[in-house]
């Protein structure tokens, strides 16, 4: 218990979290501080490339173990099924109609790559290794949740349109392509490739992450400021309960397929995190009637900061406790 508190405290005063807090503060105080759109996009390209490449290089280094296929399958199943749990919780906790509840549910089946990255940082600081292919699991989990969300709607009334163009857009989404692509580049070029670009993708990584989280804080803060009305108690409860449920289910999955401690924690984080890039874009096309303020506020304004600050240490402590007891 002491350990978890110390860990949480340590996490809270890391430059990464404080940069997020600074962005949040600046936005809530209505400062004109802003990161240009092009710069934010460039930062996210850097992060996806670096995380994918490092994952791939680590797979090239440690070899593929037997749990790889199981992990990918587990990721797929989690992404496809968590929306049903989310939908159920939303129907209990909030008054959202079916379309909005389904849209939100889709976000929680999918994942937040920045939360994943922050998790790897925490693991690294704690000296815990993890399976490199968890990056590929992250990529696999981006899309299936969208289909589940649309199914939840079409079941109700016939409104959700999933045409083949949307399908292609979702699967060939820029962040999936970049993550998977750089993962394969890492697998192919291995340790030698990593050595060549290490001082670009490893050394400055945490610093770049700070600036990215500064921007995330600004965006989350602006969102919160504009949509405070969305945040009634039920919605707030969902935004915190759902990641906890997701993490526990992720823990079960991770244990079942025999991941290492680090891998289990990352699986928990993936299950606990909610999308705010790929899924919102798909929802604007397929479910234009759903209110973006609802799903963005929950995903980016509540669950993302929760995971970033308290969630990750809790998941790590939980996994350590459970796996230590086994």
């Amino acid at each position, binding site marked *: 218990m002491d350990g978890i508190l110390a860990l949480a405290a340590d996490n809270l005063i890391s430059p990464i979290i404080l940069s997020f807090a600074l962005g949040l503060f600046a936005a809530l105080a209505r400062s004109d501080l802003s990161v240009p759109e092009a710069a934010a996009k460039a930062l996210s390209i850097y992060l996806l490339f670096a995380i994918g490449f490092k994952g791939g290089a680590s797979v090239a280094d440690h070899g593929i173990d037997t749990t790889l296929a199981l992990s990918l399958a587990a990721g797929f199943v989690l992404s496809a099924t968590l929306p049903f749990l989310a939908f159920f919780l939303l129907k209990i906790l909030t008054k959202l109609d079916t379309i909005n509840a389904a849209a939100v549910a889709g976000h929680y089946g999918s994942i937040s790559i920045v939360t994943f990255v922050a998790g790897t940082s925490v693991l690294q600081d704690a000296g815990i290794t993890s399976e490199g292919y968890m990056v590929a699991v992250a990529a696999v989990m981006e899309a299936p949740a969208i289909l589940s969300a649309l199914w939840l709607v079409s079941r109700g009334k016939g409104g959700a349109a999933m045409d083949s163009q949307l399908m292609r857009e979702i699967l060939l989404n820029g962040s999936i392509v970049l993550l998977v692509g750089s993962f394969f580049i890492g697998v192919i070029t291995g340790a030698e490739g990593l050595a060549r670009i290490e001082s670009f993708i490893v050394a400055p990584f945490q610093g770049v992450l700070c600036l990215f989280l500064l921007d995330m804080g600004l965006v989350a803060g602006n*969102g919160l400021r504009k949509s405070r009305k969305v945040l009634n108690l039920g919605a707030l409860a969902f935004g915190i309960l759902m990641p906890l449920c997701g993490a526990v289910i992720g823990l079960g999955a991770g244990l079942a397929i025999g991941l290492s401690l680090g891998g289990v924690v990352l699986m928990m984080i993936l299950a606990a995190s909610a999308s705010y890039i790929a899924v919102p874009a798909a929802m*604007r096309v397929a479910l234009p009637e759903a209110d973006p*303020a609802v799903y963005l506020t929950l995903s980016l304004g509540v669950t993302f900061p929760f995971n970033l600050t308290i969630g990750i240490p809790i998941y790590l402590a939980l996994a350590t406790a459970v796996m230590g007891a086994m």
Partner: protein
Amino acid sequence: MQMHNAKRVEITIEAPMERRLTEALEHADVKGYTILPIVGGSGRSGKWSREGQIGRAGGMVQVVCIIRPERLEALLEAAFTVVERHIGVVCVTDCEVLRAERF
């Protein structure tokens, strides 16, 4: 200089719908269009600004088509099927163009 009557159609639409709109325009045989970026705006669904966005989900663009008056109806119908369920504004102005053979 010899000018020719035309219509200027300005469609403000969410960025994720851009490709669908331009494809619909091409199907309706619209010969040309120009896409302008938007940095922010406000409407019934609230206020937004480009720098407060992650990804393209929330951004918008403006698609401007200059077209012969007799082809307006076809264009509007094509655009409307895309814009219908989505937020977006369609605004038509009379204009004159040089080099009518291009439209």
